[in-house]
């Protein structure tokens, strides 16, 4: 059962038809769900809107992982007595941000519920709740193995059962670039069927079929457990969506992870042509450190983020020139994370490393850095962290992008070149 539904034309007539249709289909057990609190609406012009509490909702968000200085990703921030989400939520609300994306909930359900409630009740901030689907499990995610699949299913369905009634949940998101384990060389997994196939292109196709079929099984079951929230596919770029079209048709939207610098290029139209689903840019952004000049450059980060958000808005529903299939985005990320550059060295978690881990020519201002490495993982925060403590937390210092986006969200300037950030 999908929570995607098409728009009506004449309201009264179609509302009546819709109601009748609903009543009829409800008995068949395969209906759109007009009572769903959050659903995706397909408009007559083929554009998509996310509807929350009966109103169109633009996802204005950030990925959220408030790891304090000196800790790493294993830190259970959900149970942090200093409640970082309270200070962050206040700043977020003042900025105009309405959504955070979380990669996977913490292990203590009560703590997770507390965070969801606080963010929603205090600041009206909703959560895209994700699950890694075991992508980083050692030695690799065995998506072709029934036991592994069952283990992941159990975790995912438990997550949905636990939090589906939390009013702060916006939608579910499955995976984060897990498609690269099928179609690129990240965490490649074996299976009996794959191993029998000598042709490497066909091996990829087999992995993609297995993975996206698994995604579809998860999605169908989530729809059964929770008809009130859509299910997103957390996909790296658009890689593999031609397979998703065939094997994961129940997916409601694509949550795309993408780093293309100042422009998303043909992303929106390309998605439409490949797998016609709405899209949330689930991970994108720019770091605030110039690897070439070796100094912080908040202007550079603001330049890219403003450009990216402008394109997101240009492709929302009913946009004049855009594809109309974009629902918004969650930029990477809310705060800096000081553990990321040298994650196996606890001493380095206390230092704000300026080393760059990878190269991306789309971020061209510092591409001439040594080895062309210009992506500084510890400097992606819209808000930087200070070693100075404030109420037990590293003090939050909003970067220029915070203010630029606050202004943009309050008055989106799509064609006003004078308002654009100059680098």
């Amino acid at each position, binding site marked *: 059962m999908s929570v995607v539904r098409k728009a009506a034309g004449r309201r009264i007539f179609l509302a009546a038809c819709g109601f009748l249709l609903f009543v009829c289909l409800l008995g068949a057990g395969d209906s759109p769900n007009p009572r769903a609190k959050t659903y995706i609406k397909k408009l007559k012009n083929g554009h998509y809107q996310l509807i929350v509490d009966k109103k169109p909702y633009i996802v204005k968000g950030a990925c959220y992982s408030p790891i304090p200085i000196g800790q790493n990703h294993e830190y259970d921030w959900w149970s942090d007595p200093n409640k970082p989400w309270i200070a962050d939520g206040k700043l977020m609300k003042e900025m105009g941000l309405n959504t955070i994306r979380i990669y996977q909930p913490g292990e203590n359900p009560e703590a997770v519920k507390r965070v969801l409630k606080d963010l929603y009740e205090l600041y009206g901030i909703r959560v895209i709740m994700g699950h890694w689907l075991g992508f980083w499990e050692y030695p690799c995610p065995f998506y072709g193995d029934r036991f592994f699949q069952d283990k992941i299913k159990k975790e995912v369905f438990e997550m949905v059962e636990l939090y589906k009634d939390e009013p702060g949940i916006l939608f579910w998101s499955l995976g984060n670039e897990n498609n690269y384990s099928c179609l690129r060389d990240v965490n490649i997994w074996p299976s009996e069927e794959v191993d029998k196939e000598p042709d490497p*292109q066909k091996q990829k196709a087999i992995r993609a079929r297995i993975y996206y079929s698994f995604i579809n099984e998860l999605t169908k079951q989530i729809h059964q457990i929770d008809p009130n929230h859509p299910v997103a596919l957390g996909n790296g770029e658009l890689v593999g969506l031609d397979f998703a079209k065939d094997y994961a048709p129940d997916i409601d939207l694509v949550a795309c992870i993408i780093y293309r610098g100042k422009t998303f290029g043909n992303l929106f139209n390309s998605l439409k*042509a490949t797998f016609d689903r709405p899209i949330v840019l689930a991970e994108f952004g720019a770091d605030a450190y110039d690897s070439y000049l070796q100094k912080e450059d908040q202007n550079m980060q603001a330049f890219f983020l403003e450009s990216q958000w402008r394109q997101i808005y240009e492709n929302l529903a009913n946009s004049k020139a855009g594809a109309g299939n974009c629902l918004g985005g969650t930029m990477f990320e809310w705060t800096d994370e000081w553990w990321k550059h040298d994650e196996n060295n606890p001493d380095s978690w206390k230092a704000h490393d300026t080393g760059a881990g990878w190269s991306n020519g789309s971020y061209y201002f510092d591409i001439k850095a040594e080895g062309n490495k210009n992506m500084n993982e510890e400097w992606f925060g819209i808000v930087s962290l200070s070693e100075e403590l404030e109420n037990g937390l590293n003090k939050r210092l909003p970067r220029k992008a915070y203010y630029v986006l606050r202004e943009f969200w309050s008055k989106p300037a799509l064609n006003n070149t004078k308002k654009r950030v100059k680098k």
Partner: protein
Amino acid sequence: MKKFLVLMFAALIIAPAFAQEQTNVATKAEPAAAAKEFVVYSDKNARNNHYIPSGWMGDYGDIKLNDQAMDNPYSGATSMQFSYSSKKSQAKGWAGVYWQNPANNWGSKKGGFDLTGMTKLTLWARGAKGGEVIQKFKVGGIGIEPKATYPDSAEVETEPVELTDTWKQYTINLAGKDLSYISGGFGWVTTSDLNPDGATFYIDDIKFEADPAMKPEGKKLEGMPFYIYSDRTSPKNHFIPSGWMGDYGDIKYEGASKEDPYLGDSCIKIIYNGKAAQGARWAGIFWQNPANNWGGSDGGYDLSKAAKLTFWARGANGGERIEEFKVGGIMGEYSDSDSATIGPVILNKEWTQYSIDLKGKDMSYIIGGFAWATNIDNNPEGATFYLDEIKYE
């Protein structure tokens, strides 16, 4: 028009700029905006010649210049005769000549001219036999990459040109370009692949002109088929195999292999030795426009009509594994508008055609026309393979 009248007219127009050049050349580029034309070369020792053909590039030992060829000049008493031997004296495989100001200035000295207001450069050229191929005529581009102290403010190049044995005028559209500082007034480049037996050709009457009818050139929608590689000498070839990646020291590229080409008289032979010369453990080549463009400069083609890219490939032994064949995907300030890939591909010993589907892709701006990449893990002994007939359709 009689030469005398031309000279009188040109002298009247150009005298102010020329006079300024004499006095100010060491301080700043001079505006030529008031003039209707600005001569690069008209005749041997003409007073209105503003640039000197001093910038010999690539296999400079392959070039001979007779700057007072009296054999059928287009106008006046002389033209410039270039003889390119194609002997690869400096082992580059290409050669060219820049007209510079001042002579031998590669951007370290202040010189050049402010040509704001000019909208085109015209020249006349002919081949001694006809069929000689100039890879490109160009304006500007000195000192841009790598950046020199005094870089030109623009770089404009033409497509390959096949000369005829009679004089023909060629035009480089400069409308909308920043011509505020041009020290490389004009240049030509060609390659031994395009002229395996060498080439003798003549150039005459090179000048900038302020033609108000010229409009800035958008990207032209290219017709299909659009070749990346047809044959070594083909003027239909586009993009340059300049983007060597990863262990570039492991690659040997031969653009004119005679070893059983699929079609025509030549194909591309690539030897990857898998020695990890740069420690990357992988290697590849991007065909780019302009050469060495990683998205840092404007270029490329509008290939919106393309529905697919096809090419023929074979391995020397069969079983060579190419991880990826790719179209587009170069990201930078000027990013490709889209990308598409196939792979891994295990090559057959016999020629096999492969296709990259471009349906639904935005091919309106492509600077990375084609690429391959492979790695040492899947080719521990290296790989030798051949490519031919690479084209958009």
